[in-house]
């Protein structure tokens, strides 16, 4: 199968102007993904499905990833003058990465027996601009998985034939798979709490049962 670079080059040739990126992957499999701008994602996906060399006719998996706003620390080696002599100094640069929601499609070809090609789409942010084009019209198998991502992450798929919550009830307002989701506190009865549950369960402990904090003995 073609490398992501080759696919990218051919898409850019066939469908200009389209903005494509190749996302690196540090895991041992090194499966890199094609990041497509949301506006052209449907055309790119259609190309991947219908192109004679690729024929990615099977969408095996659709999943969501939540990227909250975080400070990314990168270490950069810099040459600086220290006490008259030039020395290499490590410097940490902090950059604020804006938050977004990501959706990954794993595409295979049943006809040509190759794959996967990972297609990724990103929303503008995590609050109000969470719309992405639905790829269900191209791969019918994506229908329930896109509904699940809508349910648990809050990505709104435009063009989906039946976008409703699939696992949670319709009246539910939260998105449980987002990193900042806070589950309802129903930890009144925790006989053997541990870790995060212990911290949360302590709120329900009767006041007199709280372990006394021993005053530190000064040496």
């Amino acid at each position, binding site marked *: 199968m073609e490398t992501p670079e080759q696919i990218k080059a051919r898409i850019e040739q066939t469908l200009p102007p389209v903005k494509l990126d190749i996302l690196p992957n540090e895991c041992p499999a090194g499966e890199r993904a094609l990041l497509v701008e949301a506006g052209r994602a449907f055309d790119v996906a259609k190309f991947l499905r219908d192109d004679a060399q690729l024929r990615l006719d099977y969408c095996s998996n659709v999943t969501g990833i939540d990227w909250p706003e975080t400070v990314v620390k990168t270490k950069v080696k810099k040459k600086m003058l220290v006490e008259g002599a030039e020395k290499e100094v490590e410097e940490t640069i902090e950059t604020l990465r804006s938050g977004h929601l990501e959706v990954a499609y794993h595409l295979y070809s049943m006809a040509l027996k190759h794959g996967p090609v990972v297609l990724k789409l990103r929303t503008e942010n995590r609050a109000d601009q969470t719309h992405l084009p639905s790829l269900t019209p191209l791969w019918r198998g994506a229908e329930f998985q896109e509904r699940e991502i809508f349910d648990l992450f809050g990505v709104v798929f435009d063009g989906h034939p039946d976008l409703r919550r699939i*696992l*949670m*009830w*319709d*009246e*539910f*307002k*939260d998105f*449980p798979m987002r990193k900042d*989701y806070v*589950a*309802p506190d*129903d*930890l*009144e*009865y925790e*006989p053997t709490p541990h870790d995060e*549950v212990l911290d949360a369960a302590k709120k*329900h*402990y*009767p006041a007199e*049962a709280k*372990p006394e904090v021993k005053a530190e003995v000064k040496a």
Partner: protein
Amino acid sequence: MIDEGLKSELQKQGVYVTSLQELYNWGRANSVWPLTFGLACCAIEMMAASMARFDLARFGAEVFRPSPRQADLMIVAGTVTKKMAPLVVRLYNQMPEPKYVIAMGACAISGGPFKQGYNVLKGVDRYLPVDVSIPGCPPRPEALIHAIMTLQEKILNQKLTGPERPRHLNADVAGEYPVPAYGPHDLEPPNNPAIWQPPAIKR
């Protein structure tokens, strides 16, 4: 009440003496019909218990009824999700009295391995009056049979009159339990305080 010794002596002579309460409870205890109703893998063990190898029929509880109107026993076999909890309570309300509940397996008792999940009810006893709990993940069919036998014992010891009589013989006690509503963040209410209060734990 007839003396136990005299009763036994009479039996030897071919005279069988009993009370209405004993007869009534004996009949009920030996025909506990469960509701055909499974939520997760515990239901597989429940099915196995009703099949030839374990043969729940020996205890009169093999007639799994597909309608709550005909069932006496609700075996909550599996994880109760918050989405499913109102439906479980509604099914229970639709069963005629006298009715009993077995919480089968760790999930039905407390949420089990999924306890920390955002969509898992931490024990069906928060909404329903559980008569017998079976620990295990999942419990073996023998454990379910043991639970049925425990329930039979409980039924045999129920009084028909007096202040300790069960709910179905007491007109003042409501037989229905409130069905929780789907809220924006959780079920409302998150438990039924009339039947469930967090047990006191010694820390």
